[in-house]
């Protein structure tokens, strides 16, 4: 019937306009999804392009050059694969990733944090790669630590590959410790010691502060979680259904920070700080201590912010007891877009295996890192166990350029990784205002703040479980 109507002379113009409009819209749609179109066309002709691999930006010239060398080597060995990188210091920006997943515009292979798989699955944007990953395509598969594999697995289905795993400790500025008459080989382990050392460092003057912490961009909640874990607390109950941070452990952490800021005046009045700020202060010699994973030193403070590798060391996370009960652990994964062709998935896995999961290559090319002057020897990423871990430790010992004793108390503490809480970013977001209030309000009512955040988090968790 409709065909007949369109066949009438009077409808020809309408049909013409409709077709033209449809073609126009199709052209617009094609523009907005050019990467996938290019990729699928390429896979048909035998050539495959993979977009989205997270590469160091040109502001880190040494790592940038290394990455491009690796891409050239890989593409020469695999002439049918083209790697299109995203050059960025932070490839997973939560707000951007959320928008991309909801719009279905994420790259072919995209980097996420350990807690992000649920979001990708909810958006229907994670491809099942179980059939493509085995001991042939990823030889170290059996030795990847279970907590990292868990971050890319739902049920028995594999959706990605982990590439980085971290735990956190207390980064110290050894030079400031020495100037303040403190022993840099014995970083503080209790909050009371942190307070004493921070006061001594702050007394150096010239805008130097003993301790720093985040309170913006979800980083405040992120650090609070780690400090809470170290103090024996947990963000949620084991089932992840209710908040559990409004406890003595949580109050003690916030009390310690509030005392550092207002009683000791050992923290700056400039707060609402997000990721990247404390690293700069540390590199500039203006900050004595803050908590972080070791890669802050060798990936940011030294190569980007211009710090001197010999000025830094690490201890375990501070706690009231002096022995951290645990630490927030996390890391980075690569997931695959649902629209990826089998050829793109295979090519992506091949690249990840080459760059991120093979000792002696890519991020584990420690000989090259040493040759170009990058610091080598940090026990990170903590990706492997068994034989692969033994081989990695041997490799680290062979090429190390750092003074390992500067990090011995952190390594010896062997902190228990606690993973990320359920709905991690939402929980961190809810705790940011608590951290900000504690660090800016001399009269902050800590129990009231924790009670308010508990109510907000409980609602988030209820919505989550209720769908």
């Amino acid at each position, binding site marked *: 019937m409709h065909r007949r109507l369109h066949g009438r002379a009077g409808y020809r113009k309408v049909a013409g306009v409709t077709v033209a409009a449809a073609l126009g819209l199709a052209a617009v749609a094609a523009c907005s999804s050019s990467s996938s179109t290019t990729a699928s066309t390429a896979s048909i002709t035998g050539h495959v392009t993979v977009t989205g691999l997270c590469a160091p930006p040109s502001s880190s010239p040494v790592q940038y050059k290394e990455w491009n060398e690796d891409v050239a080597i890989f593409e020469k060995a695999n002439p049918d694969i083209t790697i299109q990188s995203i050059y960025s210091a932070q490839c997973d920006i*939560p*707000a*951007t*990733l*959320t*928008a991309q997943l*909801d719009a279905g515009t994420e790259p072919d292979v995209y980097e996420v944090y350990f*807690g*992000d798989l*649920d*979001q990708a*699955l*909810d*958006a*229907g*944007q994670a491809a099942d790669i179980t059939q493509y990953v085995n001991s042939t395509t990823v030889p170290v598969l059996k030795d990847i630590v279970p907590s990292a594999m868990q971050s890319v697995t739902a049920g028995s289905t594999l959706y990605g590959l982990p590439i980085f795993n971290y735990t956190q400790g207390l980064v110290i500025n050894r030079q400031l410790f020495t100037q303040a008459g403190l022993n840099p080989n014995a970083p503080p382990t209790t909050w009371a010691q942190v307070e004493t050392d921070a006061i001594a460092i702050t007394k150096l003057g010239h*805008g130097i502060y003993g301790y720093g912490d985040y309170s*913006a*961009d*979800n980083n405040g909640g992120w650090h609070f979680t780690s400090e809470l874990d170290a103090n024996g607390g947990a963000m949620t109950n084991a089932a992840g259904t209710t908040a559990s941070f409004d406890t003595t452990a949580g109050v003690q952490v916030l009390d310690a920070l509030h005392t550092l800021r207002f009683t000791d005046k050992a923290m*700056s*009045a*400039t*707060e*609402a700080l*997000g990721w990247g700020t404390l690293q700069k202060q540390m590199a500039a010699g203006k900050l004595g201590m803050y908590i972080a994973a070791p890669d802050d030193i060798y990936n940011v403070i030294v190569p980007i912010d211009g710090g001197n590798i010999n000025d830094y060391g690490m201890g375990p996370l501070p706690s009231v007891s002096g022995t951290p009960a645990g630490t927030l652990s996390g890391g980075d994964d690569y997931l695959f877009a*649902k629209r990826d062709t089998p050829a793109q998935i295979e090519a992506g896995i091949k690249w990840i295996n080459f760059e991120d999961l093979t000792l002696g290559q890519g991020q584990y090319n420690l000989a090259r890192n040493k040759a170009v002057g990058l610091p080598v020897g940090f026990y990170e990423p903590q990706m492997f166990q068994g034989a692969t871990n033994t081989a990695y430790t041997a490799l680290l010992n062979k090429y190390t350029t750092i003074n390992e004793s500067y990090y011995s108390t952190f390594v010896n503490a062997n902190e228990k990784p606690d993973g990320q809480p359920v*709905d*991690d*970013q*939402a929980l961190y*977001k809810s705790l*940011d*205002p608590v951290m*900000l*209030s504690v660090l*800016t*309000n*001399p*009269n*902050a009512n800590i129990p009231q703040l924790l009670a*308010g955040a508990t*109510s*907000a988090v409980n*609602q*988030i968790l209820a*919505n*989550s479980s209720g*769908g």
Partner: protein
Amino acid sequence: MADLVTLPQTPGSRPARRRTGAGGARRSSAHSLNPRLRRHLSAYGFLIGGVLCFALFSWYPMVREFIMSFQKSQLGVTSWAGLANYRRIFNDPTFWTAWRNTLEFTLLALLFGFAVPFFVAILLNELRHAKGYLRCLVYLPVMLPPASALLLFAYFYDPTYGLFNDILHTLHLPTSQWVLSPGTRWPTAAMISVVIAATWMNMGGATLIYLAALQNIPGELYEAAELDGAGIVKKIRHITIPQTRLILSMLLMLQIIATMQMFVEAFILDGGQGVNNNTESVVYLIYQYAFAMSSASNFNAAAALGVVLLVVLGAFSGGYLWLTRTRAHLSRPRS
């Protein structure tokens, strides 16, 4: 000479030879349909382009947002959720805080952002020298990208290294935490700081519009007032304000709609929430729902809050227009 006199015509109008009887008018209308279409073809072309743009980029997203606010998405499947998203936002403890903060910003922005440009425009209008230079100076901040202007203020407000605290310190006055002030009692120091930055950024545009309106006021009115012994305050009250009433009321409505959508100011100055959520706005809450919470992010809840904001602003605009129309009607001189 009389033959040369013609009736004034609006551009594009035709001579009045179509004025015939009723039958003639019908006949003429039937015959002139195609030529009229032809004559206005280019106008229709432009109209279609504009309507299509609005339909695609304004009206469709609004309809889509409304539909999304009643849906939920899970595992890539979208289904109807009834009022669940609305229940979620109304049960959120920060929902009312965000509305309270938004109203506070709107009221303060009216106080500062509405009055200051008006008085600056009066001042500029009275000046006899360096007029162009000063107008340029007043408008300059509008040309700065908002992010740059706000980063500048973020530096001014820095409690440790900021310019404002340096000045206060030099004058032996107590310093402030500015946007990081913890208070939550109206008006908060944090919100006043945000409003000051917003006013500085945006006042140039309003000032120029007021200035244009002021220059349309006949000088004779002021001369007559001066002869009657009116001072500057009386002249403003009895001449300037009544003569610029239409512009003032239009800008008032536009400003309220704009300030109710406050987002970027607090987002850059203090991360969006402020201490004790004292600068968290409704639009920031929409952003949080949509993007900032990873797996708990929810476009549908964000859409529900967007619809609530749309309804509030729509009701306000409708009410405002109705009120101002009624007043115009009442103040019309009776014949």
